[in-house]
């Protein structure tokens, strides 16, 4: 949980070791790079060339950052689902990724079975609500007051169940998202700027707008509704919430349902970008480094973390990836988060925690 702890005094003995490790890792990376390149050019390739490229082709830089922001928004959406549940029930919901797939699959599956698109959306929301109720009844309620790791593991169980369940209902083959039927825009806006072409996909813009709207709505919901206040109370302390007469069970259903809605929106957006398939589940793991950056309980943290990870990994892959053969995107996000963690263990928006005994 937030058992992440720092001491008021620096961890003097650990720090040099950590630093030694970092330096060792950096040396290993440098050697790996050096082998691939002419050694004399290594430094140039790392420290000069990428920046030259950025200056020479600013349109590509803008495009890269845009791509980063867009995938950042999508990571943030997945992370948002985690944060909502974590805040209110203290459960680290590993199943958020599969909930994204499951929601999107349900939507598309229903549509394929002949349900009109918007009715399918409503039905899918119904399914997500039913899922939230079921999870609360079957998983959370019997496990209340168990250690966090047990609840965490239970979400693994949910993940497995949903994979089997979703596949047996709708089949595991990739499906196309019904973007047109939902009146989501298609095509791109091409901007002739900076001596080149920057192309912004309308669907990506829509994703950004929808994400911001949703976050705004969530903020309003948390701030101004009775349930929202109750949710915040639960986030602060379960006992406190109980003592003022808030039903935990109700709250859990609501947050899991909210996370389900977030999952559906995420699923639609990701699905529109590629396809609806179980492979998305692995992309969802990228939300974890986002959480590290943003902290597990901070909604703004999830957003900012998502954007940092998105832009960071895209820039890294685009400008530095080719130096070591590319494909570094699969792990770069985790290293960004890890590096960050070593210097600010409580995340971007977390408070420093003083350990007491």
């Amino acid at each position: 949980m937030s058992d992440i702890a720092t001491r008021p005094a620096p961890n003097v003995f650990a720090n040099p070791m950590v630093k030694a490790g970092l330096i060792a890792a950096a040396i290993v990376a440098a050697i790996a790079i050096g082998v691939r390149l002419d050694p004399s050019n290594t430094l140039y390739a790392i420290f000069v060339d990428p920046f030259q490229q950025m200056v020479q082709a600013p349109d590509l830089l803008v495009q890269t950052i845009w791509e980063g922001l867009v995938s950042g928004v999508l990571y943030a959406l997945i992370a948002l689902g985690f944060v909502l549940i974590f805040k209110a029930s203290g459960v680290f919901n590993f199943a958020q990724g599969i909930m994204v797939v499951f929601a999107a699959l349900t939507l598309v599956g229903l549509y394929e079975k002949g349900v009109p698109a918007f009715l399918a959306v409503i039905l899918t929301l119904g399914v997500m609500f039913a899922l939230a109720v079921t999870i609360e009844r079957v998983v959370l309620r019997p496990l209340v007051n168990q250690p966090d790791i047990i609840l965490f593991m239970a979400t693994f169980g949910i993940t497995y169940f949903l994979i089997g369940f979703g596949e047996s209902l709708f089949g595991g083959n990739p499906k196309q998202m019904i973007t047109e039927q939902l009146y989501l825009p298609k095509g791109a806006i091409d901007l002739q700027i900076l001596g080149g072409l920057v192309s912004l996909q309308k669907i990506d813009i829509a994703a950004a707008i929808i994400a911001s709207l949703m976050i705004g709505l969530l903020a309003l919901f948390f701030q101004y509704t009775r349930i929202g206040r109750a949710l915040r109370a639960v986030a602060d302390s379960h006992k406190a919430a109980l003592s003022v007469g808030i039903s935990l069970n109700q709250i859990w259903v609501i947050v899991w349902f909210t996370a389900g809605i977030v999952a559906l929106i995420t699923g639609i957006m990701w699905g529109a970008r590629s396809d609806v398939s179980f492979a998305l589940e692995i992309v969802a793991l990228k939300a974890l480094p986002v959480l590290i950056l943003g902290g597990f309980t901070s909604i703004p943290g999830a957003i900012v973390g998502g954007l940092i990870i998105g832009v960071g990994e895209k820039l890294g892959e685009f400008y530095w990836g080719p130096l070591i053969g590319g494909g570094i995107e699969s792990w770069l996000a985790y290293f960004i988060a890890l590096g960050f963690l070593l210097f600010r263990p409580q995340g971007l928006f977390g408070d420093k925690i003083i350990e007491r005994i």
Partner: protein
Amino acid sequence: MLYREAGQYKSTYAADMAVFPLREDRIGIAVILGIALVAVPFLGSDFFIASVMIPFLIFSLAAIGLNILTGYTGLISLGTAAFMGVGAYACYKLTTFFPNVNIIVLILVSGLFSAGIGVLFGLPSLRIKGFYLAVATLAAQFFLQWAFVRVPWLFNYNASGAIEVPQRTLFDIPVTGASATPETRYFVCLGLVVVLTWFASNLVHGKLGRSWMAVRDMDIAAELMGIKLLNAKLGAFAVSSYFAGVAGAMMIFLWYGGGEAADVFSIRLSFNILFMVIIGGLGSLIGSFFGAAFLSVLPTALKFGLPALGVPLTGATAEHVTFMLVGALIIFFLIVEPHGLARLWQIGKQKLRTWPFPY
């Protein structure tokens, strides 16, 4: 009345400190070993040995490794598969460099490389804990997986991009390679698992094990007791990764017999081993075996056993059912007994101990 401690007095501390202080337990272990050594190879079919027992043993070893880290020391890792991969690739390189050294020695040595890498990726554990650490170990998982594919030196520049397990013999009997019989491979696995489990049991019952558990239960107090967190945590990472590495080498050399290791040691495997540890019981060696049996044998049994029993299940449905069932069972076990199968076992033993006079 068959199983009790009454009348068994321990006159020395050594006897009291034995891992199995009860005579019945010792007999039980001997019986299990007897079954494993005699009954399984002579009565089991090739399929049973090759596809049930060998995977079970290898997963047990990996689960013991992760249990040392997660169950005993309280550090969650999602990078087990990557550490297993390090072992497999190290073993492959070692067989290339030292073709004349006994393969079993090489398998055991390859764990050391994995231990080294484990310590490197364990360094963040000095600063971060809990889920944050779990995410940090994902960095190891994805980075190492990338490296397995990307560094052709690791797979000897094979055109297939995969480990191609060469034939190696022990006393002129092939142990690895295709002509090694399932029985031979099984005996080697069994030997390694028994010896390493014994080591693990010794470690967790000794000073190091106590330090690990102290760190797990209350790291601050442990530090004030004079336990060096650095040593305890990195030690746990090293030992855990060693076990994982040996299990990984065994997986490729004694079970898969080669293959696309980057695909074998994927994040899915890391999760699976974590499930084994949790289902089996955190902080219990015997639980690691239970967990491995549950999660590696159950799907196979469902897939091949149900049709045999006349339950009409097509391949795809069986697969879906397996997923749902495993998911549901994970939740079921967590609800019924959050401390895993090992605790159920203990409760059962406790009942047996007082049976038939519970009061």
